[in-house]
């Protein structure tokens, strides 16, 4: 594929799109998947363009996986590297479980966006660049020593440098807008161009524009015109002399939507509370990235979601725990620093045996660490981070859709077993999005509560049902008055007890209650052969990269399979047995090897670690390479 580097200015600045001409027949490149990234300054509307392209691709029948990249600076100077905002869409017929390792088409609205994203471009990838933004002071601000469109630094890239400002302005010239308003249309021009490139339908976006800007007809019209002008520009102008075709995916029938990890969590929690017929009390203290979930929840008041903002994370869990005692579904969400602060309160939650859910959206640690980067290094903390023998349930969501499933499951288990549940997600997962088949509300599993003995006069808050759950006796009901607390309690009466044997029984009981949840968990399933040479075992958000890598590796003659642990404590009952069916186990993790340690600790299983601690998710390639290396050394 020859790189057709165009000399800048090939499109004459004044080349306002001519009257429509019949579409030029250009060669079409077929792609099973493709990755498009829109990048520009924070104000350039890249998130919007990305979201629209995602919808368009979904409507076009592709699988989609998207990832926004927002600047960590709150308001970085215009044109600076720190101010670059990006949105990546990986779409295709199958295997789009990550945002894609490399970008096929990059839209760069300014030099900073080009600088930041150039390294991610596939060799031979296409860069659609807004040439109007490449004045010397602009490329200087981005840290270039010379105009990158001219100095050969983009060698190996197919460059389409267009005067997008001017083209867009020309397209909307007849509409009366302020200069600022006019400028803000240019993202639609770029978007239109990419729609042409991938043959996406423009109608959903036009519809969206009509709804969004209904109150502002001039802007409505301008955005629509700009989008269509971009499309037609692609059709009519030979600046990009090829198109892509990405075939439809094979979807299970159903109604779909786009779902981010955060949306999945929010919907899962609300659905569970709704099914449990209890109010949801979501108490939290803002912390990146969990605050985004807080914002989601704050919008759900009509579902009786009660969102107190707590003074700190200790109070947040305290509020949730109090709410659970009071009969609500108590939930809190935080990130590493908050989870650390909650250690003591988590101990109380375990001792009091109250249902509550702690969502930990992991980010780079330790301490404040890298607040804007992703990581998976809170696993051992979730398992062991409390004094005393203090077991609780730990889950980890694998995909945005799984965020829904496990948030729901977290509530279900918390209530069924009267236990706190830590649900691990991460920064990457919370922002990533994919297509989600919308479940029917009635198909969601029932939320059962432990049996509460109606014979109130003899009520004993520490007597258990067959699953070792104690009753959830909610204040307000006569006859069930009882006292709980952080002190050890008698195994029968629930009264405070410091009796030696009783303590040992209670410690074992708390441990067994959690351990035997495994009895009802789904078996750990593999993608690929049921036994063989290599199992690639992950947990949490690495699932996409792992499964894609394993899929690619399955083309070799060696038997490679993938599995993802979503239940970290307890683990599915078949875990040890499953692992033993493979000659080797590879554990890719975004930490120093915490699951590897756990597998050794729990099952004595030796695994090969693939640890990445760079604040960024795995690329498929990284895992693929490691698999290849292992398999090679095998043969």
């Amino acid at each position, binding site marked *: 594929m020859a790189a057709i580097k165009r000399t800048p200015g090939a499109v004459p600045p004044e080349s306002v799109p001519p009257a429509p001409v019949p579409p030029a027949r250009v060669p079409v490149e077929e792609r099973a998947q493709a990755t498009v990234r829109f990048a520009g300054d924070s104000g350039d509307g890249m998130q919007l363009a990305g979201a629209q392209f995602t919808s368009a691709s979904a*409507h076009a029948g592709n699988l989609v996986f998207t990832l926004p990249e927002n600047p960590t600076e709150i308001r970085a100077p215009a044109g600076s590297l720190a101010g670059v905002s990006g949105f990546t869409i990986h779409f295709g017929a199958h295997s789009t479980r990550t945002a894609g390792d490399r970008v096929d088409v990059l839209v760069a609205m300014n030099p900073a966006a080009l600088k930041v994203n150039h390294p991610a471009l596939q060799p031979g990838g296409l860069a659609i660049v807004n040439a109007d933004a490449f004045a010397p002071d602009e490329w200087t601000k981005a840290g270039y020593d010379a105009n990158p469109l001219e100095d050969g630094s983009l060698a190996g890239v197919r460059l389409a440098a267009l005067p997008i400002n001017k083209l867009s302005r020309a397209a909307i010239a007849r509409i009366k807008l302020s200069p600022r308003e006019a400028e803000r249309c240019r993202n639609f021009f770029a978007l239109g161009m990419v729609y042409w490139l991938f043959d996406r339908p423009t109608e959903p976006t036009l519809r*969206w524009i009509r709804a969004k800007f209904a109150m502002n007809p001039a802007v409505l019209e301008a955005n629509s015109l700009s989008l269509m002008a971009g499309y037609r520009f692609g059709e009519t102008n030979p600046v990009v002399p090829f198109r892509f075709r990405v075939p439809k995916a094979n*979807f*299970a*029938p*159903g*109604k*779909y*939507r*786009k779902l981010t990890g955060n*949306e999945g969590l929010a*919907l899962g929690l*609300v*659905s569970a509370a709704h099914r449990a017929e209890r*109010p949801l*009390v979501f*108490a939290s203290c803002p912390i990146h990235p969990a605050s985004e979930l807080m914002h989601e929840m704050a919008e*759900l*008041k*009509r*579902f*009786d979601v*009660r969102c*107190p903002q*707590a*003074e700190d994370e*200790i*109070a947040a869990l*305290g*509020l*949730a725990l*109090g*709410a*659970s*005692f*009071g*009969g*609500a579904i*108590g939930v809190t969400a935080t990130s590493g620093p908050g989870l650390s602060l909650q250690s*003591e*309160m988590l101990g*109380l939650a375990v001792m*009091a045996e109250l249902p509550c859910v702690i969502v930990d959206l992991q980010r780079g640690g330790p301490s404040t660490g890298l607040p804007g980067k992703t990581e998976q290094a809170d696993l051992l903390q979730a398992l062991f981070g409390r004094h005393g023998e203090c077991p609780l349930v730990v889950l980890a969501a694998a995909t945005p859709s799984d965020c829904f499933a496990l948030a729901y499951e977290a509530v279900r288990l918390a209530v069924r077993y009267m236990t706190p549940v830590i649900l691990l997600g991460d920064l990457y997962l919370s922002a990533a999005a994919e297509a989600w088949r*919308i*479940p*029917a*509300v009635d198909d969601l599993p029932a939320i059962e509560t432990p049996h509460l003995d109606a014979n109130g006069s003899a009520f004993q808050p520490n007597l258990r049902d067959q699953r070792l759950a104690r009753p959830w006796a909610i*204040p*307000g009901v*006569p006859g*069930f*008055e*009882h*006292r*709980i*607390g*952080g*002190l050890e309690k008698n195994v029968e009466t629930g*009264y*405070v007890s410091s009796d030696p044997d009783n303590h040992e029984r209670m410690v074992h009981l708390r441990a067994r209650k959690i351990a035997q949840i495994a009895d009802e968990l789904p078996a750990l399933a593999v993608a690929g052969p049921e036994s063989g040479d290599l199992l690639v075992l992950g947990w949490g958000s690495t699932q996409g990269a792992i499964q894609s890598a394993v899929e690619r590796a399955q083309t070799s003659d060696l038997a490679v399979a993938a599995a993802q642990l979503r239940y970290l404590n307890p683990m599915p009952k078949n875990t040890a047995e499953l692992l033993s069916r493979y000659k080797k186990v590879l554990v890719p993790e975004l930490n120093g090897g915490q699951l590897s340690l756990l597998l050794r600790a729990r099952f004595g299983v030796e695994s090969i670690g693939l640890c990445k601690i760079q604040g960024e998710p795995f690329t498929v390639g990284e895992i693929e390479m490691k698999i290849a290396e292992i398999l090679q050394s095998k043969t």
Partner: protein
Amino acid sequence: MTLPLLTPADLDTDREVRWCPGCGDFAILAQLKQALSEAGVPREKLVFVSGFGCSSRIPYYLNTYGFQTVQGRGPAIATGIKIANPELQVWVVTGDGDGLSAGAGHLIHAIRRNVDLKILLFNNEVFGLTKGQNSPTSRVGTRTKASPLGSIETPLRPLSLALAAEATFVARTVDVDVHHLTETLLRAASHRGTAFVEIYQNCKIFNDGVFDYATDKSVKEEHTLHLEQRRPLIFGRDRNMGVRLNGVVPEIVQLNNGNGNSAGSSNHIDDLVIHDESGDDATLAFLLSRLSFPEFPECFGVFRCVDRPTYEGQLLGQIAEARQAHGPAKLDELLAGDETWTVA
């Protein structure tokens, strides 16, 4: 008046009450039962939350719903309970250590939010349960095992702090004055919003007698002043002393006439501060919270009592508002979101 639904004995549990002989907590527990029996809230709607300390054992000794939590976090947990179910009457029992050491932040935030909690702070000016270290209310110079040469920290005044935290109800009472104690608890029970009550409590073992000036019959009337709404600040065995303001600086004056009836005198009863628990501004209550032994009489009673919407009331109000605005919540619609597509 509602007929009492409960007798104090109905609130007994079958647990042995374990404090040191002579501890002021016994009296407080007794009066608490008395007040609860008079307040007319059914037992199952009562919830007692505490942190940790001798005082924090209270929930175990009351046959209501109860939750002894961890050091200092009671107010947060209690807030959660009210958010889940505003129908419950939730009491928080804390101590000067529990509530003002680890718990100061949570206390302040519960108060400013005006969560409908009755917070009782048993102030014995010492960490009792951990065997007698100085607490945030210990007086300067207090010698304990942790401060063998005397405490060097200026004590916090719980009521000043509560007022600065925008409290809507603030009162003070003392373990041995059983009538006043019950009355004060009843006033707290009937307040809607955070009712913060400081209770002077004698720790027999580690800080015995620290409140003698305010409880010893022979001297207490000289050192205490009972606040009454819209009445002048008069105190003393002969009720012949009063508190007057010089600008905002309080001073004690001898009334020319014991009953304060002598007209035309220079130290006239009309010059005295008139108590007003319900003024817009918390300054008067703050001023009163700072009067302390030995310079001034210490005030007992209700310092401040004003109306402000409760936190949980407003929170649920917004939920009602949102439901009103959006119509009945449909989960399917929520799950579907703004944009869907269908694959056949």
